[in-house]
Structures are given as C-alpha cells and as structure tokens.
C-alpha cells in the first residue's frame, strides 16, 4: 500500500470532541438522549477495541477452522438480532440463522470459487461482516412487514382459504411483498451508489491509499454480493416463516 495514512492518538482525541456537539444538542434541546448517546459511544469504542484485538489475533492465526467458527458466531448474533423483529413467530431464531447462513454460504462460495477473494481471515471476515449485517437488516424488515401484513390483510388470506386454497397460495402476495420490502434498502443504496453515498468500504480503501479505480472494483463486487445475499436470505426466511402464521388446521393465527 502506497501513501497509507495513519491516525495518531492526539488527532483521534480531538475528533472525539465531536461527540460533545451531539451531547450539547441533546441537552439544550431537551431530547433526553444524553445517556443513550454516552452509552452508545462507550459501547462503540469498547466493542471496536475488542474486535480490533480479536481480529489481529485471528488474522495472525490463519486457521480456516477458527475463521469459520467466527463466521458462525457472527451469523448467530445477526440471527438473534433479526429474530427480535419477528417476535411471536415460532422457531424464528432457527429460521433466521438458516436464512442468513444460506445467503452467506452461497454468496461466499461464488466469491471464493471464482477467485475474487481468498478464504483468508483478512478477506473473508470483513466481507462476511458486510454480508451478514445486510441480511440481518433485510430479515428484520421482512418479519416486520409479514407480521403487519398477516394482520392487515387477514381478509385476503381468509377469503383465499375459504375458497379451498392451501396456505401458500393464500399467503403468496404477502410473502412476495415481504421479500420485496426486505430488499428495497439494498436496491436503493445500490441505485444511489456514488451519487448519494461513497460507501464505507470504498472510503476506507481510498483513505488507506488505494487508487479509486481499484477501490471501485471492490465496491462493485460488494454491491453484487449484497444484492445476492439479501435476496437469498429474505427468500429463505419468508418461505420458512409464513407457515408459522397458521396452525395445523390451516387457520390464520393473529399475533398480538
């Protein structure tokens, strides 16, 4: 890497004063989020420092087994978080884990077998981090949409059931809308790439001294892989979870 930048501790400390701006605003505007802001800042610093040490350790290990275990750990955490949005749906944690790992494994396999990235911790872990967190957000959106749709579109579902339809044709409209809703954030951000946002990874690479053309190649790969993963994960999650809105007598259950 040529001309890479380093941040010294003093400038980082000065940069931290930016937090005071948000604290002051919260205080003067009586937003009442000072405590939350402080907590989030402390959490961000502590978590990142720990992750920094762990990553340095794991990158040094270069053990594929360890890398895989870490990926599973990340996927589990993401599944746990996503499933909070699907409270009430049976087996939601298992479904989320399954959806996230399917999306991640499929996308990673394409990337690894095509030689785009190597199964080395310093490549696989950051890339998977992006994939997994995107799936997590997509699943959360899917679940929220499904729960509200099964409530609001009850008539539609029950009309179809009473015409003798099975639960899949009765729910297909809701399933499709949920998958679509889950993918919209990723599609929207893909649409505005470069116009509205220079994504974090690209920014990071450029800041670190990689040429913008090189950074763009990575960004294109990242965009494609996020699109593929969110679609796979949303698809798997919705198709696995819609059944849980019905009981064994194919009757719609309403969540409170």
């Amino acid at each position: 890497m040529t001309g890479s930048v380093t941040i010294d501790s003093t400038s980082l400390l000065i940069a931290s004063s930016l937090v005071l701006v948000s604290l002051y605003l919260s205080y003067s505007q009586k937003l009442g989020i000072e405590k939350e802001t402080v907590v989030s800042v402390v959490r961000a610093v502590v978590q990142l420092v720990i992750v920094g040490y762990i990553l340095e350790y794991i990158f040094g290990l270069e053990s594929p087994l360890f890398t895989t275990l870490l990926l599973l750990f990340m996927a589990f955490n993401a599944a746990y978080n996503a499933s909070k949005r699907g409270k009430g749906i049976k087996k939601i944690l298992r479904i989320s884990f399954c959806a996230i790992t399917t999306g991640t494994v499929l996308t990673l396999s394409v990337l690894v077998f095509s030689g785009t990235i190597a199964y080395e911790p310093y490549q696989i872990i950051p890339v998977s981090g992006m994939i997994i967190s995107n799936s997590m957000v997509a699943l959360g959106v899917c679940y929220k949409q499904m729960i509200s749709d099964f409530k609001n579109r009850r008539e539609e579902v029950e009309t179809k059931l009473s015409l003798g339809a099975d639960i899949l044709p009765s729910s297909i409209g809701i399933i499709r809308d949920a998958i679509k809703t889950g993918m919209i954030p990723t599609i929207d951000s893909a649409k505005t790439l470069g116009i509205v946002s220079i994504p974090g990874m690209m920014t990071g690479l450029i800041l670190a001294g990689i040429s913008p053309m090189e950074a763009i190649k990575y960004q294109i790969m990242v965009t494609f892989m996020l699109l593929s993963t969110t679609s796979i994960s949303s698809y798997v999650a919705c198709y696995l979870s819609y059944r849980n809105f019905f009981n064994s007598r194919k009757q719609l259950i309403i969540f409170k």
Partner: protein
Amino acid sequence: MPLLDFQDVSFINDGKTILKNLSFVVEAGDYISIIGPSGSGKSTLLRLCSHLISPTGGNIFYKGVNMNKYVPTELRKSIAYCSQLPYLFGNNVKENLDFPFSVRKMPFNEGRVKELFSLFNIPFTFLNADVQNLSGGEKQRISLVRTLLFLPEVLLLDEVTSALDAENTRMVLNAIFTLNRNGITILWITHNPEQSKKYANKILTLEAGEMKSLEVLK
C-alpha cells in the same frame, strides 16, 4: 345422520365468550336463516362452519366425522363461505375468478363464468374490470360468483345482499333457492326479516352468543 352437528360448541377469544354452548343440527337440504342482533355471533358461527376457526369448547361434526379429522382445504371446498365484506384480491375480476380453478389445478372455464354472470346479471365485460372500480353491490355479486364456480355441498352466506337493490336481491334469492332445490344446504345470515322467512325451512336466532331458538317453518 345430520350433515352438520354442533355439540355444545363454544368460542372464546381473548377471554371473551363470543359463542356459548351451541347445540343444534343441520340436515342435508336445509335452508336455514340465521338472525340476531349485531354482535350476537352470527359471523363467528359461519366462520366455525367453514373451519376458519375452531371451537374452543365442544365439537362440530360434518357427516358424522369431527371436523378436525378432515383435510382443511378439502373441507372448505365442500363447505363454501361467502363473507360479510366481499373481498376481491389482486387487480382485476378475472384474477379472482381464476383463483378457484387454479386451486383445483384446472384451466379457466369461461363458459362457467358466463353462465353465472348471466344468472347474477353481471355484464360479461366485467371480467376484465379493475376491482378498484367496482361498486359495493358489484363486488358482492362477483364474490358470490367466485364462491359458486364450483358447487359446494354446504353454502354459507354472510349478509351477501346487504349492498344490493331490490331487483338484484330478488335475483340472488331466486338463484340460491334454485341451488337449494338442487340439494345444496344453505346457511344464510340476514338482517332482513322478510327475506329470512321467504324460502327458509328453519330460522336460527342468536342473542349475545347463545342460541335463542331454532324455529322450524315447514
């Protein structure tokens, strides 16, 4: 053997008793009018018959077998339910009328649709109409057609003429009566006392979730 047999059926939702200890039988070929004040549980009773919900107490037998023993989708094909608020899904009327065919993995039968359209006085051009642009009465009749594309053994009607004018109401009444004479059992919720007596052989009266009477007319 009665066609439908309610044995001490109750339905409690969220701690609230909606139907309480209903016991009665429906014989094959019956035409029963269900009446009662708003909120007395009439719709809930038909939803139980169509197996969209199950009793929280007691049992319902269909042809002598507990409803829980049937395959739900088959049961609902044989006991058809046309709901109080006609719900047309998708974009156009054709999508709605194709649905019962696709459920049975059968091709769309335009002839059958034409037959029912003329029976209920619907112009055939409505087939491609946008569901958003239909009047309440039109939706009601199209939802009836959708329910009747394949004839059930029991037909559950929930105030299906509430949005119709006198002329169309008479037409629907006659069409349903014809079905009844051809052997289809009818359970019909209505708010119109005159209509309830016209063709029915029994009148079931609900009040506050309890069966007040089951009157036999003829």
